């Protein structure tokens, strides 16, 4: 219960900051529109049958792009105002930090999908079948984005202190989120085809989300504490750079 309350407090804090400036939502939302228009330009000539096969890929590629953009910003804000150490020193469970960042990312991604799916429906007639089963569509988008954000939040937290290391986030993110994106692709394809096993696939995504969030929560503390300060490990986190500096300093005296 305490964990949930702390998570809610941290999430509300982030969402309030977001509501004041709308930075994440506006940039990510506009980026979604840009991607949809680019998809429309690139795949305009596809006929109905092919469109239906291409649309799951468009949906989840767009989410993957927007997600990487959002995740770099979610922790940047803490880094820029130097509040990451304060957040870690605050009397909250580290798990609550992870869950709140996950929730914020999820909110941004879902806002983007609220633009993305109708946008695709407008530009690609084949995707209008999405409207046939709105409940399944919402469940699908929530579960898919949740799994993506669960992996992404962990690594965005780890890279939070590395200035200009954001390229690495994409390098890590895309191979690691492939399982959840693949499952989401399968489910989207089944949603478009009206496949009877749609809900079975959705429950598989839900199970996968539980695993990803579990592993993410388990690893979050180790990864993030390495990022903020060294808590007397056997070997301090920046050992190699410190050693290199020591070596460089000692060379002239030899």
């Amino acid at each position, binding site marked *: 219960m305490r964990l949930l309350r702390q998570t809610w407090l941290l999430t509300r804090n982030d969402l309030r900051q977001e509501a004041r400036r709308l930075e994440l939502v506006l940039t990510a939302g506009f980026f979604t529109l840009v991607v949809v228009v680019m998809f429309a330009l690139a795949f305009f000539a596809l006929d109905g049958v092919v469109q239906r096969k291409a649309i799951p890929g468009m949906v989840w590629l767009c989410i993957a792009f927007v997600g990487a953009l959002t995740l770099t910003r979610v922790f940047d804000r803490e880094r820029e105002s130097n509040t990451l150490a304060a957040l870690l020193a605050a009397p909250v469970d580290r798990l609550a930090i992870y869950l709140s960042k996950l929730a914020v990312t999820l909110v941004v991604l879902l806002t983007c999908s609220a633009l993305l799916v109708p946008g695709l429906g407008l530009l690609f007639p084949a995707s209008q079948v999405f409207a046939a089963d709105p409940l399944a569509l919402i469940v699908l988008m929530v579960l898919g984005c949740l799994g993506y954000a669960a992996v992404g939040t962990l690594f965005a937290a780890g*890279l939070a202190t590395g200035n200009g290391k954001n390229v690495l986030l994409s390098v890590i993110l895309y*191979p690691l989120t492939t399982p959840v994106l693949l499952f989401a692709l*399968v489910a989207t394809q089944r949603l478009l085809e009206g496949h009877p096993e749609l809900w079975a696939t959705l429950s598989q995504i839900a199970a996968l989300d539980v695993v990803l969030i579990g592993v993410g929560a388990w690893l979050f503390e180790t*990864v993030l504490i*390495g990022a903020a300060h060294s808590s007397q490990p056997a070997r301090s*986190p920046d050992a190699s750079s410190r050693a290199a500096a*020591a070596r460089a300093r*000692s060379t002239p005296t030899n």
Partner: protein
Amino acid sequence: MKYIPYALLLAAAALFPYCVQRVFLHTPIEAEMGTAQKIFYFHVPLAWICMLFAVICGVAAGVQLRRRSDKAEALAVAAGEMTVLAGVGVLITGPIWGDATWGTPWTGDARQVSTALLWLVFVAYLLVREYGPPNSERIAAALAIFGAIDVPIIYYAVKIWKTTHPQTGVVGSLPQSMWNTLFVCLAALMMLSIALVWIRAAQARMAIALDQAWIAADTQPGAAQPA
């Protein structure tokens, strides 16, 4: 202990020519795929080695995070590099074989996709270790753990993704003589990879110890500097 990897290297060097001779001269040619099937004796052991060291890297990374153990970290680095190396071998031999027997190098089969993704994850692991921020050991370790968990899931996901597409059988039942040859090749390649991982892990441990010695020397001005 110190000489075990070198003994393994020697044994692998001695066994390898015998493997080649056995593969090309003493094993019957497979009826359906012809001579092209000979690549199987190197492709499959490499794939097994790739998977094995991916799992070892994931487990070692878990131990590294839990116990903050330098030994486990060194093993994880070495195993990660071996996974990438064996993965390159698999990803080169696989499409050659596929091109000769299926007529196309890439069919999007579950095994192909999951091997390729496994390889990407471990290349990312090495990239993060090499170019990451100061805490990159931890991020990389988390990445390796996720990678080891991801592989079976990807395999299953591609399998159901592909239910709408034609299935491709990879290898049917093989006669015992072919299996025996496969195991000889596996032994040679396995000895080679274990020896390489062993040597690399020892070297990585030494590098970590040297870093610590430099820091110790830097923080205590009076102490002797490492050579």
